[in-house]
Structures are given as C-alpha cells and as structure tokens.
C-alpha cells in the first residue's frame, strides 16, 4: 500500500512487536496520530499567533500552557520545545562554549553531543566509564582535575547522559552534578532515553539543563525534543534578540536567537502535546516496563552462551547483549549466515534487530504489553531451540 508516489505506507507497529532500541519510546499514542491528521499543514499552529508573536506564547492551541506544564513536570523553571535533543545540546553549547574551551562529555556520550561541542569549537574531555560501563562521580571529579591541569581552567560545560545509548545504563547524574557544581561547571542532563519513559526531576538531579527527545522517548513525531532550564540559566539560554538592522533599524521583538525564533511548529509540536498526558502517566509505571524487560532478559539468559553487557538487574529497558557464544555460533554454519536470526524473528512478527547482527546487539522492550513481552521471550527461546542451542533449565 502506498501513501504517496514511491512511498510505502509504514505498518511496522501495526504488524510487528517493535524492539528497535531507538524506536520503542517514540511510538505515537492514538491522540498524537489524530493530532497529526488535524495539524499536518505547514503553519497550522500559527492560526492564532498574536503578539508577542512567539511559538511558546500561542494560547490556541494551548502551546503556552504546554510549555509551562513540561517545565513543571521536569521540575525545571522554563522549557522550550526543540527539533530533537541534539538541537538542545547545540543551543547550550553555542551559549556557553567558546573556541578552545574544554567541555566534559563521557566515553558513552552520543555523537550529537560531540558535534554540538565541535560546532562551538570546544574541546571534548571524556569521563571514562568504569569496567561495568558506568560513569561515576569520582571519575567525573578526576576528569575535571585532569582538565584543569591541561587547560588551566575547569570545563565550561558538562553534557552527561542519564541513560546512555550504548548500554542503556543509568548513571548517577545527581552525584556527577554535585561534583561539577564544586567547580562551577554547568551540567546538562541528556535525558534522551529517560524524559518521557521514567520520572525525571531536574532540581533533584541538581542540573542546569534537562534535554529530552520527543521522538525517542515522548511518543512524539520526529524531530522533536525539549530543552528545560533553571531560572538562572533560562535567562542566558533563552535570551531574546538584541540585533538591529543597520539600514532598516528593524528589531525582532522577543525572538530567541538560540531557538532561531520559533522552533517546533505544526504536527510535531501538536503530536508532542497530544501524547503528553499519556507520557506523564506512563512514567509513573516504569516498573511495569522493567518487569517486561526482565521477562525477556531471563529468557535470553536461559539460552546457553548468551551474556548481558548492560548492568543487571536492569534499570532501563534499552539493553545490550552478547550472543557471540549462542546465536552467532549458529550463523557460522547457517545458509542465511547471520541473517537467519533477524529473519526468524521477523517471521514471528518481531522487528527492530539489525539484519545480520548475531554478536553484540541491542533491543528495547519499552511499551510492550506483558503479553507481548512473554511472546518475545518465547520467540527467542524458540529460535534458539530450532537452531540446536541449549536452553538452561
């Protein structure tokens, strides 16, 4: 079925259980789909834009209230919606980092955090994760000291992932922020995998900024995200324009340069807004998600040779496993080689594994029902059994 010339109608989430590590938390709610249908036209949210002519001030639909609600929900003072978490990193880096400035990242940081630093011409200083792939406050302190010696000053900014994309491990943001504060380093908490999936309290974490991803974790269309700040930092990051045309003398009111005026318009924004009541509710039930992950994880670990590379027990549903000694052994002799694995899962209505991957791979059970989690668990064991792998009792 086509939805446009050459564009296949995507039915992945109707036909499969989707465990793609980056897609699970971004699947839309029914209300988001309905909102997109109604607000798909370009400037659809601008019908009632009145002075001061800025996106976050529009009252109909209630975009102004939504911005305040999101800030309150994250226990921060102000928030702006962004076209993706990465644009949040970029805005913050652009505000605080100058050429040659050291910026604290981690050995598990997402590439877009590096690009944000690069764009601001800063220098990345990675806090190394420990052997268990956890970034600790002690390691942060050591890196700051090392940076001070090397650069003659502390990092000007720290971008720390609350849950990293590689292992899905939960890092002690509050502890790291406490250390950073001792050196007056502003901290951005990258909540791309947490904001919208589990409770996030910016003030309790002691951070200056919380960044979330709408399309990764807030049941929203892409590209969407949120940048929230404390009142003190909001004055800096959400500063208004001061520029003036030299010929026309034009000024641009309350537009915010880091946001290039208005950021997230139309269907993406209204999709986020429509999902928000559900997102607020679902974070309260993160334990259910962990329970579903446990069902699948126990099943995978029952397959002889399978190892988990993420911290265990799991504190997040994004999980990295090593099946070199199980599913990959089959791949060496199977006629489809490594592709047998994703193919067998696809045949069972499971989507999201990289085709051909049988060694180290990731999956995310977020948003599955308990019934779907049990189905997944049984499917992994069934694929193992039919390929002669032993199951531990």
């Amino acid at each position, binding site marked *: 079925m086509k939805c446009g010339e050459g564009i296949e109608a995507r039915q992945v989430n109707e036909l499969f259980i989707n465990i793609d590590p980056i897609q699970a938390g971004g699947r839309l709610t029914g209300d988001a789909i309905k909102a997109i*249908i109604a607000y798909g036209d370009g400037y659809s949210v601008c019908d009632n834009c009145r002075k001061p002519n800025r996106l976050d001030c529009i009252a109909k639909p209630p975009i102004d209230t939504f911005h305040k609600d999101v800030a309150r929900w994250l226990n921060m003072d102000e928030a702006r919606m962004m076209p993706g978490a990465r644009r949040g990193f970029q805005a913050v880096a652009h505000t605080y980092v100058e050429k040659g400035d050291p910026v604290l990242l981690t050995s598990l940081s997402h590439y877009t955090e590096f690009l944000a630093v690069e764009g601001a011409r800063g220098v990345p200083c990675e806090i190394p994760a420990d052997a268990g792939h956890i970034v600790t406050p002690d390691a942060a302190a050591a890196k700051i000291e090392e940076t001070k010696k090397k650069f003659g000053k502390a990092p000007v900014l720290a971008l720390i992932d609350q849950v990293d994309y590689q292992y899905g491990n939960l890092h002690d943001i509050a502890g790291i922020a406490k250390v950073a504060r001792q050196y007056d380093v502003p901290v951005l908490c990258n909540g791309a995998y947490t904001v919208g999936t589990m409770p996030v309290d910016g003030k309790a974490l002691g951070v200056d900024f919380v960044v979330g991803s709408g399309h990764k974790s807030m049941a929203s269309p892409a590209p969407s995200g949120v940048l929230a700040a404390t009142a003190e930092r909001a004055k800096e990051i959400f500063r208004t324009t001061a520029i003036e045309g030299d010929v026309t003398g034009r000024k641009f009111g309350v537009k915010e340069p880091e946001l290039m005026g208005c950021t997230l318009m139309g269907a993406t924004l209204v999709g986020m807004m429509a999902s928000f009541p559900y997102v607020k509710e679902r974070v309260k039930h993160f334990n259910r998600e962990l329970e579903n992950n446990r069902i699948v994880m126990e099943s995978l670990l029952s397959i002889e040779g399978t190892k988990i590379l993420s911290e265990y027990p799991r504190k997040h549903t994004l999980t990295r496993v090593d099946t070199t000694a199980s599913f990959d052994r089959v791949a060496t002799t199977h006629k489809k080689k490594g592709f047998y694995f994703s193919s067998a899962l696809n045949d069972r*209505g499971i989507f999201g594994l990289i085709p051909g991957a049988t060694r180290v791979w990731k999956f995310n059970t977020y948003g599955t029902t308990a019934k779907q989690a049990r189905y997944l668990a049984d499917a992994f064991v069934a694929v193992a059994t039919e390929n002669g792998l032993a199951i531990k009792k």
Partner: protein
Amino acid sequence: MNLVSKRSADLIFSATYLLTDLRMILRETAPGHELDERQRAEAARLLENLERQVNSLKQEMLR
C-alpha cells in the same frame, strides 16, 4: 460558514479518528492480533460507530 460543509468535515475527522482507535488496537495486539474480550467489544463499538459516521457522510456529501 456553511454548516453542511462543517458537518462533512466533522464526520471525516470523526471517522478517521475511529479508524485511528482501531489502528491502536492493532498495535496493542501485534503480531497475532488475537483480541481479548475487552478489545473485541471495543473494536465492535468503534466499527459500528464508524459505519454510522460513513453513512451520515454519504448523506451529507452526496445529497
């Protein structure tokens, strides 16, 4: 505003939204789509309502 046209637009949105609710049932029950009693009752309600919306739309648009 032409109230007849407004009614047609409302019916189109309403029908599309009912289909969206059905779509969500598909998502919730993938991949087997074996509906439990609650889901079956909900699907039946949505489909009946959808039929009513489509019939009304026929009357509005094809008059």
